């Protein structure tokens, strides 16, 4: 691409010795230079080779780099399992109020009453939404929420003197589920799903033995389907002393419709960066609060935000706590955004979120079913998974389709997830997208299906409108080039 798109600089390549982009005051205190204040052995031998650029260089460089991205603000971003909904601008304004953004984490409770109240109330609202008894806001993301949840389960079993060593996880699960569980010290046992993605309840019933600590499942599952026998499953587990964990990444499907707690789950995490509109930011930060039933409350991460009369405090005296997950109390900035969102929507609004998320996903599923293989017949919940199995036979893979979509002005669905669906394209439209956008996307998908037959070259060549074309992943992994150096 030439013109606006033809930019190929790294900030280091703009550097010019002696150019400055900062403005710092002269020292207003008397004193000796740092070279005299500190022993030489601690001081840098040579100044760090950071770029030397002007403020304007910085602004133009990063403005230009931003234009090499697709974002939700600029493109439909139907990435399944990620709930790429609109991130309200108001949330950003609120998170930037200096009473929040400029608050040090280690001020006294008395000096942070507004922040603590917000956290207390947010935890209570999330607990109500999920039907749980308590919520810890500390986990920094979904994966850390899982980790915290599994650790609480572990502490619970330990507190009862039980030695359970395994956690069962369906083969359709997101990778963080087994990873978090393994780090928590459990053996992960993968449970094979039925062809339709549902749990094989009978076989599960056989597997949940006395060595099983927990069963971890995503609801709706990663095929976008509600697990019809879920209450039966949680009952079976409980009957065997097994805790049930719900991966709440797909909560956007069920707000006000059904609640993890009511389904029998003992633990459930939230992804505030999915369901509750905190921005994804190119990969994070998010927030992964974890909700629990009361029997797990003693094990909550410290500190727990509590309310005493009219004041709020951080309670550190939790002898059975699993400990801390982050240095401080959670990704507070994200909590402000999620709080703002929930207070904007209210109960009816949240219910309407899920209603429309489900409607949009089903609309896409319907519109695509003639041209793509559908793994499980609808209705689906908030997302749908189609397969490019048919296209694959003609040499067009899910990846190819994703790349072609980029050329047509859309970000791509999640591909090859869940693992149990061949050539999976996992499409999550969210409730914030309009019918026109869904139609344009479906039209593009159908067009690609046609092109598969008539003009596959268009697809194999794609993308051609992006700042770069398909990239050599193998080379990247074989000869890792992870930092810039002047010779490059």
């Amino acid at each position, binding site marked *: 691409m030439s013109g606006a798109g033809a930019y190929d600089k790294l900030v280091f390549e703009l550097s010019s010795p002696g150019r400055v982009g900062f403005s710092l005051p002269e020292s207003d205190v008397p004193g000796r230079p740092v070279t005299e204040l500190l022993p030489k052995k601690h001081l840098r031998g040579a100044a760090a080779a*950071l770029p030397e650029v002007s403020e304007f260089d910085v602004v133009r460089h990063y403005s230009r780099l931003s234009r090499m991205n*697709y974002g939700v603000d600029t493109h439909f971003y139907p990435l399944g399992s990620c709930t790429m909904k609109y991130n309200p601008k108001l949330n950003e304004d609120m998170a930037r109020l200096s009473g929040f953004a*400029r608050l040090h984490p280690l001020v006294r409770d008395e000096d*942070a009453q507004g922040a603590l109240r917000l956290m207390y109330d947010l935890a209570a609202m999330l607990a109500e939404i999920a039907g749980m008894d308590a919520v810890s806001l500390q986990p920094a*993301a979904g994966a850390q929420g899982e980790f915290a949840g599994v650790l609480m389960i572990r502490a619970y079993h330990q507190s009862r003197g039980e030695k359970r060593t395994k956690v069962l996880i369906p083969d359709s699960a997101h990778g963080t589920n087994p990873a978090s569980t393994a780090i928590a010290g459990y053996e992960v046992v993968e449970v094979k799903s039925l062809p339709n993605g549902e749990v094989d309840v009978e076989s599960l019933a056989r597997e949940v033995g006395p060595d099983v600590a927990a069963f971890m499942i995503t609801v709706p599952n990663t095929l976008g389907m509600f697990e019809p026998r879920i209450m039966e499953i949680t009952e079976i587990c409980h009957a065997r002393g097994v805790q049930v964990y719900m991966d709440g990444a797909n909560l956007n499907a069920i707000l006000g419709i*059904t609640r993890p707690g009511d389904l029998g789950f003992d633990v459930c995490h939230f992804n505030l960066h999915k369901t509750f509109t905190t921005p994804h930011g190119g990969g994070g930060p998010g927030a992964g609060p974890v909700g629990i039933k009361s029997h797990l409350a003693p094990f909550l991460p410290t500190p727990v935000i509590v309310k005493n009369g009219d004041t709020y405090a951080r309670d550190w005296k939790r002898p059975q706590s699993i400990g801390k997950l982050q240095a401080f109390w959670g990704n507070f900035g994200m909590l402000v955004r999620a709080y703002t969102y929930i207070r904007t929507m209210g109960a009816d609004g949240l219910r309407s979120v899920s209603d429309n998320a489900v409607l949009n996903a089903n609309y896409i599923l319907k519109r695509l079913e003639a041209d793509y293989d559908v793994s499980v017949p609808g209705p689906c919940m908030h997302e749908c998974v189609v397969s490019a199995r048919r296209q694959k036979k003609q040499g067009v893979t899910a990846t190819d389709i994703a790349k072609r979509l980029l050329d047509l002005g859309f970000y791509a669905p999640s591909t090859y997830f869940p693992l149990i669906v061949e050539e999976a394209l996992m499409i999550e439209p969210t409730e914030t997208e309009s019918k026109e956008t869904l139609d344009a996307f479906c039209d593009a998908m159908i067009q690609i299906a046609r092109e598969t037959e008539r003009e596959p070259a268009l697809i194999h060549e794609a993308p051609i409108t992006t700042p770069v074309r398909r990239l050599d992943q193998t080379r990247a992994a074989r000869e890792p080039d992870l930092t810039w150096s002047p010779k490059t």
Partner: protein
Amino acid sequence: MASRYIANTPAEQREMLKTIGAASIEDLLVKIPPKARLSRPLALPPALAEADLVRHMRALAAQNADADRFSCFVGAGSYDHFVPSPINHLILRGEFFTAYTPYQPEASQGTLRTIYEYQTMIAELTGMDVANASIYDGASSLAEAALMAHAATDRREIVLARGVNPLYRQVTETYCEGAGIRLRDVPAPDGVLDLDAARKLVTAKTAALVIQTPNFYGVLEDVAAAAELAHAAGALLVVVADPVNLGVLEGPGRLGADIVVGEGQGLGVPMSFGGPNLGVFAAKSALVRRIPGRLVGATVDRDGARGFVLTLQTREQHIRRAKATSNICTNVALCALMATIYLATLGKQGLQRVGELSTAKAHYTAEQLTKIPGVSLRFAQPFFKEFALRLPKSPTTVVAKLAKRRILPGVPLKTYDRALGDTLLVAVTEQRTREEIDAYAGALAEVLR
């Protein structure tokens, strides 16, 4: 009333339902067993209109002692460093702000390039070969380093200097529990690592020795000595370091560290009551395939043009699942972007100046405060921008009294170490003016009178 965050109108809903062949949205929810359904509306506070909500949020924000209204001398892992204006403007560009992890690299070159820049800057500052795309915060970075050291050495003990931030120790403990890794502590009676004690504790069972410099008390540790000691036992040296200080202080990698972790919040990320933060993670290249989290690498596209991708992904949970090097998925990419823009803006000279100013002001503050009768430095050691102060009255009382004067004088260390019941940890960044410092000294003198 329709919501401004939902697009579908009733008419559109009907049209879509017609296409789907369903009579109502309810029809789409058939797979949810009736008894699983919530039969009442969620019991949430009522929705607020934008203006009302803004008023409510302002009221909440006003109840906090923020660093705009209060003079902030609190540190201990979160610092009031200056944030140049362009950072916020640039990160708010929707293309950065609302993008996901760059899984489709062709449509994510903006994010990928900034991460590559970030990795380069962090590697340069820490003196390491490689840095990852970020971990949640400094504490969880340290925890990941402990797990990585364990995996790399197949040893089950981590020896931690007492100078490591106790909150980081707590998080490391949480993470090490599952793997059965044992933490052992080296005392720091004089505010620095007791090398003799360390030598005894670091053995053939030790996966890593962990030190922090400047440590929790603000004191500089002897990294080279620690490295020698650790390596002698076949253990790795993990150094916790705040990258904002590394414009002045030597990159721990050049002094022998194998892994450097730290909290990058000082690099342009608002304190925000402690999160989101920026977990910095850097390592020697020998360890690259064990690194937790994402890595961006340079490559070429079909036409030979330079491009960037997520690479070495077989380390990660979405591929390796239970055997991944870490469970991390969502990280703190946007905070890494803030840090990248911060470091580009400050640059070679600026970061150095930040360190110099902070040190100068911290030393001036220490001088002024220790002129007050009964007030002294807790440790006779070289310190950087933070120092432990022994007070003749309860630090907790002092903090309460100074808060009334809009001064946040520091962190009482009692909670972290009973032996330090008389000690206040004071941090001074380049943001504090002489006027504020003198006002602090004046107020402290009065309160102690």
